[in-house]
């Protein structure tokens, strides 16, 4: 399930030919290296755009970042947390 984070993060990104690609960012005082950008899209809020990125880090964690064109700021929107498996037997003491 998705867990909303909505925290401002510092991101190293590549801005080239009108495209933005996040490379690395810092979250919880730890560097997170982006291994793959799995999706990109844009939403608009009036004349300003927010660019969204879904990324996978070195540990195969899925995260969603966004870049606000107006504020020139990055946000870690949410992360994917695997739901606990149903029906799994409880650990015996």
């Amino acid at each position, binding site marked *: 399930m998705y867990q909303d984070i909505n925290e401002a993060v510092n991101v190293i990104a590549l801005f080239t030919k009108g495209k933005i690609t996040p490379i690395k960012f810092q979250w919880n005082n730890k560097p997170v290296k982006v291994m793959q950008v799995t999706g990109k*899209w844009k939403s608009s809020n009036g004349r300003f755009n927010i660019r969204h990125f879904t990324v996978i880090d070195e540990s195969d964690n899925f995260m969603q970042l966004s870049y606000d064109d107006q504020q020139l700021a990055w946000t870690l929107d949410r992360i994917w947390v695997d739901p606990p498996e149903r029906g799994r037997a409880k650990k015996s003491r």
Partner: protein
Amino acid sequence: MLQNNAGANGVKSRHFGTNGSFGKGRQLTHVIQREHSDKETGEGIEPPPKRRLPRGVPDKVAARWEGYKTIVHLDMDAFFAAVEQQHNPALRNKPVIIGGLPGYRGVVSTCSYEARVYGVKSGMPSAEAYRLCPHGIFMQTDGHKYTWVSVEILSLLKQFSPTVEPFSIDEAFIDISGIWQRYGSPADMVNSIKDAIKGKTGLTCSAGIGPNKMIAKMSSGMDKPDGLTEVHPERVPAFLENLPVEAVWGIGKATGKALEKVGIDTVGELAKTDRSLLKRLFGVAGLALHEIANGVGDTEVTPFYQKPNEKSIGHETTLPKDTASVEILTANLRMLSERVGRRMRKSGFEARRVTLKFRYADFSTFTRAKTLSGYIRSDTAIFHQAMRLLKENKQRTDSIRLVGISVSKLRDTYNSFQEDLFRSSGESKLSCICETMDKIKDSYGDNAITYLSTMTRYV
């Protein structure tokens, strides 16, 4: 002449046989004539390799499309769910259900094929979906994301043909008449399009090729997901012959039942039915049904760059809880009229007819409309007409579940240079206010400004 079971062998490109009997999807037996093969292809036998001819060399089968309109309908497979699965690998091969969350009121917008195994379907209440598939991953829709991917796909389609008509967020018609020859055959061209979409977005789609939009649309639903069904113009009667009438695009459950009552179960039977009988039963729509049953359909694909011929603009909302509160209903109608008005003005229209839809808690639904003497453009004028319709027609004090507003009898404001002589000065002022609000929303977003009365719309 050979036949095979379409669902079993995974053949993607196919031509329908003259003596075939067809059903929707894989539930009914497909009987297919493989025109390029004389061997019977039963289960377990690999389909023959895909025909690959040098570009610009149409083969014999393809050549039979020469001189006919060649329309393609593309339908993305479980689009919203597939986009989510593509973006988040953790969701792949899992039952993903997009729409209302369980515990809240809402319906399933779409679901992945893994969820469909459990009986989950589009349009089903989320609570029922949860009952069928409690371990499903329920997610809310993300319109911006899906629209973005849809636009990406559309831009790709434009590279193949200039005549692309987006039909919805996940469907499009493409006219490939006179273009497919570069690829060898219509099927080869569509396979190239499918490959390009998969390469760019990772998503699959199902396609139908036919001589008109109706046949193309119906055939794209025959082999899902990731299928391709080709219905040659000469094979249209055989394609339609044994289809149940409800498989026809435009025939719903009510019409299907009405046809069943007079003993018409298949499209073939509908095609042979006397036109006067159909006219007596369904009016002008009966004649249209007869034409559809005989394979006659619209062949004009409206290119994306042409302004769509909008006939009405509407919005509706299901309330979080059933309510009879006038204040809440008023607030929701205000919000809906604001949305409808903004869309109408953005499209450059003004309207002369306002329609109100309301659904009681027992699902009985009423639609009431009023045609006005003059054209209106402001949110407030739409709202006042909707309120009047509600007051005049809401006979029961029961709670309401859903409200909707639409406007029709549209006129292009850009082309109507002459100001309406009888437009009230009040309406002109209200229109100016709305246009100012539109400019603020254009700059700062749709939530930047609204009517105070919309604030009380929540139960």
